């Protein structure tokens, strides 16, 4: 452990490599987490099938790439559309029945069941093999090649961030975004003022699944996927949202990128088997301090 720490101190290029890598891929996690936060904040649905939508998106990119020869980056709009449509269907069949449930476990159980169903279906359709869709874009060498970054990570970073910003702008300034925000604030009042709540919910959930799909396209280009790896992305996005807080757009980006960079560095110093543990410990510490701080400022709800 000390030896590994010394390496980072003696050769800062490895530290830089770990951090840059983490920041770049962290944006992908942030995108998926943004979707989760959207559905959670607007509809009060914690979607535990988040990761499965990600993997499904990845499989679509993979299939379009290998079966139809479409460049993986160009598949992203197709994936987004397919996942949007899938999101609408899932909303109509499952999610709409969960709205307004007092017991949060019913939501979790239902979406978790959906996750298992999707895993098995993906395995039946795409097979259980580990797949990757490498766009072979080459490398970027920094500082005389002491830091190597594959271009696909840079491209996926740019895509993730621009999709996030685009959505942020839509939410903030468009009429459509206004209806979503109004519904999130007070669904009943929004309904009285003529907003079709059901339509807003359906669209919100579909936007979430579309974001997952885009995330999945990026995941299959940067790493590898198989039908049973979805939970990693569900948990990571859940963690990012908890850390950032609901409705905190910049917070999601920061914590998404920060967790990944931290994970790389801790993995390097104390070993891959502890990197998840360290992140979870950190999460606990942050939540505890936050609740202590909140207790100090306790006041009545207005």
């Amino acid at each position, binding site marked *: 452990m000390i030896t*590994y720490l010394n*390496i980072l101190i003696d*050769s800062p290029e*490895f530290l830089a*490599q*770990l951090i840059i*890598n*983490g920041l770049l*891929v962290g944006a992908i996690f942030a995108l998926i987490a943004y979707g989760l936060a959207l559905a959670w904040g607007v509809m009060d649905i914690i979607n535990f099938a988040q990761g499965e939508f990600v993997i499904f998106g990845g499989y679509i990119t993979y299939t379009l790439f*290998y079966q139809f020869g479409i460049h993986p980056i160009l598949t992203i709009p197709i994936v987004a559309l397919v996942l949007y449509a899938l999101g609408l269907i899932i909303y109509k069949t499952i999610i709409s029945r969960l709205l307004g449930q007092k017991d949060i476990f019913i939501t979790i159980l239902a979406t978790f069941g959906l996750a298992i169903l999707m895993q*098995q279906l993906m*395995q*039946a359709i795409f*097979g*259980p*093999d*580990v*797949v*990757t869709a*490498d766009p*072979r874009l080459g*490398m970027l060498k920094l500082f005389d*090649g002491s830091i*190597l970054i*594959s271009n*696909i*990570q840079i491209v996926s970073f740019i895509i993730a961030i621009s999709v996030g910003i685009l959505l942020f702008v839509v939410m903030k300034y468009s009429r459509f975004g206004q209806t979503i925000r109004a519904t999130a604030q007070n669904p009943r009042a929004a309904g009285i003022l003529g907003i079709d709540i059901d339509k807003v919910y359906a669209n919100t959930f579909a936007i979430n699944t579309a974001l997952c799909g885009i995330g999945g396209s990026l995941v299959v280009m*940067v*790493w*590898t996927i*198989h*039908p*049973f*790896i979805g*939970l*990693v*992305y569900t948990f990571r996005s859940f963690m990012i949202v908890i850390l950032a807080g609901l409705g905190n757009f910049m917070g999601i980006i920061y914590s998404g990128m920060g967790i990944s960079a931290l*994970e*790389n*560095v*801790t*993995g*390097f110093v104390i*070993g*891959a*088997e502890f*990197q*998840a543990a360290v992140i979870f410990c950190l999460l606990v510490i942050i939540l505890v301090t936050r609740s202590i701080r909140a207790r100090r400022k306790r006041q009545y709800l207005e």
Partner: protein
Amino acid sequence: MIKRVLSTAVKALVLSGLMISPAAMADTIKLGAAVSLSGKYSTAGNHTQKGYDLGVKYVNGMGGVVVDGKTYDLEIVYYDDESTPARGASLAERLILRDGVSFMLGPYSSGLTKAIAPVTEAHGVPMVEANGASRSLFNQGYKYMFAVLSTSEQYLQEAVNQIAIKAGKPASEITVALAIENDPFSQDIRAGVMDDANRHGMTIVIDDKLPRDLSDMTSTLVKVKALKPDLLVVSGHSKGAALSVRQMKDLGVSVNMLAMTHCESAKLHDKEKFGNLADYALCAAQWAPSVTSEGAVFGTAGNYSAIFDGEYGYVPPYQAAESSAAVIVMADAITRANSLDKDAVRDALAATDLSTFYGQIKFSEAGNNIAKPMILRQLIDGKYYVVAPANVATDELVYPRP
């Protein structure tokens, strides 16, 4: 009218079925098998099932099994264990109690075998298993379980011996990095590699245990880049194999010797998917079509490969070959026991010393096969070449990795 004709026809069918079936049943020996046909092991589970089917087909084709002057055909009763150990155990119970099988073939994977073995043991049902290599299976004192394959700690030991020969420096200066998944099977592989590396006096510079939900290996691989070990050992099922070669390229990591497991199940040889990313990697295998072993049922290893290819349209992975071997071993033991008694067959199995296309098979007291070595193959341009151990090697190991 039509209804009446149909119902008569159905009755006739049922009656004839009833009349034939007792006779047909008397002529078959039922073997039970719970195999992963769905869930995360389904690819390998399907190879297993095909191996069993082909084994049964050829054993039956060669006259079946003769017990007390009477000829029996083998028949397998299959269940899908959905890749879950609990399901596997209850299906084993069902096979023995409901379906009345007296002999079992193993499931796929060490985990499932570990779940099923206590059940077969409790009922005194002999089981020949072909896909559970974890050495923790063989220190439980099981009396009715026999495994045709090499145990897991042997998987990559040969790579350690090879780096000792090839590195061109004293063993004490050789550095080894381990990136091995945190599950019982992979950790057995690690233990084997550690034993041999320590015996040679090599230094382990990285010893990372990869999480089961492995999605990113950046931190481990940057460490490899920083410490430049002579040998990198990666074992994390097919996801570990695929992810490591993919990320080694993205991070610009190179080592002189890369030894892995599961190259074949990860399809690293598929150039359309992985290009030449995995070139010159050393891959552990239980068996390859090019090994020089032969037996009565399928002839040579090459011959088995051709038969399997003709039947299913692809070259058999070792998971299929060892499964066929398990059927051969079971048939051989029942023939030698000359009885359908479970204990008689168990004793015959313990005394097995059989040459097969899969290799020599002879069981230790613990039930593992001690007569067959693991082999190491080098992947070059989409093809595997057997490079170690020396007595079965067909090609020279290329070192260092260019």
